[in-house]
């Protein structure tokens, strides 16, 4: 992937935005405008959209995916990708189901989920950094492998015996109406944003993405950090699987099918460069809300899911293409 530096979207600036134009052309500003537009359009089209309880309930549908997207964002910033995240969810859910059948309670199931997810992440990380293999191929392979294991064990069966406590966390609220999964996502986003934007480790992550060679010669433990980020991605997928399994109360081999591409879409729309080295967590969060609320608004209006996916695909391409086209048009007029 070459020559993406020309677009401001991928520019790593050495100073804070100075002029109004600088500020307005920031990716996050565009996303905020998009979010306002989404809320406005949906509120006009349906009276049920702008309702506090409805909106909070809508977060059920994207909070788990959004947790996965946080790990994905970190990996894409260091020029890696993890396409096996949804398959990890399936494998984790399988092991949770087996553990639940053996009588494990909700706390043990959480440990099982986090451990399994982390081990899957270690497998990816070891293959990518230990053997110097391209992450896209490795994770396409482990995607088939992890989901394949779930498929072999489950066949066309489903595991449905889960403790009540797990179901009430997956489907339940903190206080009157704030879903557990949404609160967890917000807390995780806060932690990831702090580490990425406010700590030396975060600067190292950006440095690796901007130039892995130079980072290595600057004494950054490139392989160890990349390995760690694969483990983080696996860990977050495990956590997402814990919430998802609790929410739907069953495990089938096709659980979370296609989520890897949805998580990548959240990250890219959030302004993380697929070429690595730039991106922000607030951007990813804004993209999560834009995508989540668009989906919610349209499903309120009974638009079929597959049609929503057309619009989300168009949104992704348009949002990426429009600034490039606009800039060229401006340059030609000058």
């Amino acid at each position, binding site marked *: 992937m070459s020559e993406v530096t020309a677009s401001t979207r991928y520019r790593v600036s050495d100073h804070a935005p100075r002029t109004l134009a600088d500020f307005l052309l920031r990716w996050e500003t565009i996303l905020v405008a998009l979010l306002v537009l989404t809320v406005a359009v949906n509120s006009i089209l349906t009276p049920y959209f702008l309702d506090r309880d409805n909106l909070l309930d809508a977060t059920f549908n994207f909070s788990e995916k959004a947790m996965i997207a946080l790990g994905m964002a970190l990996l894409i910033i260091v020029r890696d990708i993890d396409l096996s995240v949804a398959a990890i969810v399936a494998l984790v859910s399988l092991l949770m189901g087996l553990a639940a059948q053996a009588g494990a309670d909700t706390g043990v199931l959480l440990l099982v989920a986090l451990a399994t997810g982390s081990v899957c992440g270690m497998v990816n990380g070891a293959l990518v950094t230990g053997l110097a293999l391209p992450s896209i191929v490795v994770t396409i392979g482990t995607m088939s492998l992890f989901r394949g294991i779930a*498929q072999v064990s489950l066949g066309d069966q489903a595991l449905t015996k889960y403790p009540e406590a797990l179901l009430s966390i997956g489907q339940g609220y903190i206080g009157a109406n704030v879903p557990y999964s949404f609160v967890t996502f917000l807390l995780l986003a806060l932690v990831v944003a702090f580490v990425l934007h406010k700590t030396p480790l975060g600067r190292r992550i950006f440095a690796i993405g901007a130039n892995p060679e130079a980072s290595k010669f600057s004494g950054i433990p490139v392989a160890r950090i990349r390995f760690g980020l694969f483990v983080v991605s696996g860990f977050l997928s495990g956590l997402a699987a814990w919430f998802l399994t609790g929410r739907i109360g069953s495990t089938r081999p096709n659980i979370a099918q296609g989520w890897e591409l949805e998580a990548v879409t959240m990250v890219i729309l959030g302004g993380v460069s*697929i070429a690595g080295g730039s991106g922000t967590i607030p951007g990813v969060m804004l993209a999560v809300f834009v995508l989540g609320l668009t989906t919610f608004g349209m499903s309120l209006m009974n638009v079929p899911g597959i049609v929503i996916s057309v619009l989300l695909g168009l949104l992704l391409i348009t949002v990426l293409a429009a600034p490039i086209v606009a800039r060229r048009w401006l340059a030609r007029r000058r």
Partner: protein
Amino acid sequence: MTYRREILLAVIILAIVVGVGLRAPAFVTPSSLIGVVTDTSLLFMLTLAQMAVLLTRGIDLSVAANLALTGMVVALASRAAPGIPIAAIIVLAVGFGAALGLINAVLIAGLGIPPIVVTLGTLAVYRGMIFVIAHGAWLTSKDMSPAFLAVPKAEFLGLSSLIWIAALVSVAAWVFLNHTSAGRALYAVGGNPVAARYCGIDLARQQLRVYTISGAVAGLCGYLWVSRYGIAYSDIAIGYELTVIAACVIGGVSIAGGVGSVPGALLGALFLGVIVNALPVINVSPFWQMAISGAVILAAVIVNSRSERQTGKLILPEARRKAANAAGGA
């Protein structure tokens, strides 16, 4: 050019066929083996097209969605005008597929958006458009004219027309990639984009060409898929893009660009075809298929990365060290 990797893969495939044959002799009869190749015909073509894309350091995730959408378009055309000649259907399929590929090409080559992002977006759009244009309906063989359905059933010299079409596409790919300057240019931009540019090879032009070709092949396969299975709906070939990429990886095509051969890609596809067809024969649950292909992809990419290190003539120790570093940091 040596074909060590291809020979190794061919030997492995042969060993699998012989091994399965020992347990189930019916598998190794000529008609059964021809059946395997017929079954794999579409994968051969899609793998070759994907290889051309991968050579340029690109990726086309939209092929399966393109295939399904084009299949629906030709099925709708056949229902609307049953008398439409089959040649027109094929031209429509190739043309429509190429047009969808051209959309990718313009976004990638014209606007410089990374291929993985563009084709991820168009994957969702093309797949969803099937639902939109057919209003969610399923078209079955009842909606298709007999001539439309006849092509995949036709035989010539005892072989299915699918095999002949795949053979034709393979020969065309071989000639294009090895004996035309446009084909060599794909290797050049993937092998070393900077050097290619200094040689006057324009990356954007190669991308424009290669994504359009990929779309055209996907379109052709869309017609063949729908007419062979006699059904068109929004979920056909769902996730198949990853099978195609897996076949490329197994066949030794490098995802980092510049490396790949026509025989390798064909063998990669054949490998998956043999596995898919052999499992039920030896009474292994088809649920194993996914796990096995995952393990094989990992094995293939490990083997390929080992052998890639020995290629190229590195004379100086510095150059060798630099290459090792580059491989470690990539």
